[in-house]
């Protein structure tokens, strides 16, 4: 299955050039500093993990990347476009998709509709054609339905495709969240704690999905994760945050043996 077409000039190989870069990003809410002078880059096709103790600012970092939060300082460069801040739907249009720690699914809609909503960006027919549901509008619906069904097959949630999302167990909801992000055929996928609240088998399934997405479709993955085993197994490079600052940046082995990281996790005063 070809979930994402290659763009002209894009080489499908392993890790490529820098596709996303943050420089000197600082973010605060009122008096609370969520991020202080964070800089790092993400290379295309790699799996980049962001780890750190609770409250380190990891989710805020993701929110800055796709434009939900505006940083007070610093800038984000994505695919060559430099911006101080992005609007979320612009980020989506540029090819960034994400999942959420607290799911943020559309609880009143079915699984199918939730994932189809992820493809709204690509739907072009206007109001009148949609109202009549003929010709191009109908063809578009069916074409996108086909793609969404492929994603549903990939995530093995066929049996619940017409269930209202609010009624699904947590693990399946997480898959729908992932499916909705995948539906946009993104260049970069931001995953916010995709394994949270899962048991061993569910984590294995989710890890497999993440690896497949990265392997087969070349999607760059940036993921926040607490499970060290998962992080060490899956990721190419790791960024470590603590109290809103970057304290380490490198391969899993480098990071694992960094004293600063060990101190941060053990809670050594600094």
């Amino acid at each position, binding site marked *: 299955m070809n979930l994402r077409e290659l763009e002209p000039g894009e080489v499908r190989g392993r890790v490529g050039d820098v596709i996303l870069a943050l420089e000197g990003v600082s973010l605060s*809410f009122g008096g609370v500093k969520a991020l202080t002078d964070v800089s790092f880059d993400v290379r295309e096709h790699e799996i980049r993990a962001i780890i750190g103790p609770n409250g380190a600012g990891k*989710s805020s970092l993701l929110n800055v990347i796709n434009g*939900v939060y505006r940083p007070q300082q610093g800038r984000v460069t994505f695919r060559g476009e430099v911006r101080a801040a992005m609007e979320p739907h612009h980020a989506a249009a540029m090819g960034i998709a994400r999942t*959420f720690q*607290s799911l*943020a699914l559309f609880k009143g809609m079915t699984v199918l509709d939730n994932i189809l909503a992820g493809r709204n960006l690509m739907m072009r027919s206007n109001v009148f054609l949609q109202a009549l549901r003929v010709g191009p509008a109908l063809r578009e619906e069916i074409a996108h339905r086909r793609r969404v069904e492929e994603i549903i097959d990939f995530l093995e949630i066929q049996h619940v495709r017409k269930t209202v999302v609010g009624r699904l167990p947590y693990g399946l909801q997480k898959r729908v969240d992932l499916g909705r992000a995948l539906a946009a055929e993104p260049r970069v996928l931001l995953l916010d704690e995709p394994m949270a609240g899962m048991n061993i088998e569910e984590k294995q399934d989710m890890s497999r999905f993440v690896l497949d997405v990265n392997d087969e479709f070349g999607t760059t993955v940036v993921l926040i994760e607490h499970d060290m085993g998962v992080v060490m197994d899956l990721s190419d490079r790791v960024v470590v945050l603590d109290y809103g600052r970057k304290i380490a940046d490198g391969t899993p082995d480098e990071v694992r043996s960094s004293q600063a990281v060990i101190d941060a996790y053990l809670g050594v005063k600094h």
Partner: protein
Amino acid sequence: MSASARNLTIAFFALLAAAAVSPMDFGEARFPQWLEIVIGGLMSGVLYSLVALGLVLIFKASGVFNFAQGAMVLFAALTLVRLMEKMPFVVALAVVLAVMVALAWLVERLVLRPLVNQEGIVLFMATLGVAYFLNGLGQLVWGADVYTLDVGMPKEPKIILDKVFEGGILVSTEDLVAAVIAGLLVAALALFFQKTATGRALRAVADDHQAAQSIGIPLNRIWVIVWSVAGLVALVAGVVWGSKLGVQFSLQLIALKALPVVILGGFTSIPGAIVGGLLIGLGEKLSEVYLGPLFGGGIENWFAYVLALVFLLFRPEGLFGEKHIDRV
């Protein structure tokens, strides 16, 4: 008050002052008239605040937007006026108070408790149902005529500052007394909230229902108390407005005006209800006098709402409301 809210309010009053001065010659003859209008506007603003206060109280404590507040005002005034035909004022007042408490208990038991986890819009519609019910009940039991409410409010307008301005300024003593009553009520409520244990419990509930419950605050009783206090506020508002305008159905429509007041002030702020009421009352009066002729009159029907709308565009949570941060 936040910086932007303060700036907005200052700008508003500056604009009013400019409007007052600009079309006029600077002769003394016009200025007193402007002052009269401003004072009149502020006073009617106080009366709006009274009704808004009830709304804010209930929203703060139970998260319910009580659309029946207006109906409560009318019901309280109606009951009082009819009871006063049979018994002295003070006794009637006590009876009405008891009735409002009973009403609060009934609403909590029959409406709030069964709907406790529903969305805001469902609760709002439920209070709409309560409003219709109260209207029907009030008319059924007490009749649908217009009643004059005489609680001894002074009717003679007073002339003040006649040494400073020629002819002095006409002030409605009734409105003045109403403003004083409202002020006393607010002060009493403030004391109640800050100094008593029940007041503290009410503030806890307003902040976080579940947390309050987990420290042993009985949510249901709190709600009965809050609705009773709102009933008391409704009664005072009913007395004041009813004495001024007569007790009739249209009293309820005035209560509808409390909505833009609450919007301006923010749903959860008592000082907001006061400031909002003053701003609305003032804005309405001034707009009717100065802008009205441009539009052919009658703009006070919608001016308050449009004013609230404009304010909201700059500050969607209201002047004193809590800013909502979307956490994803």
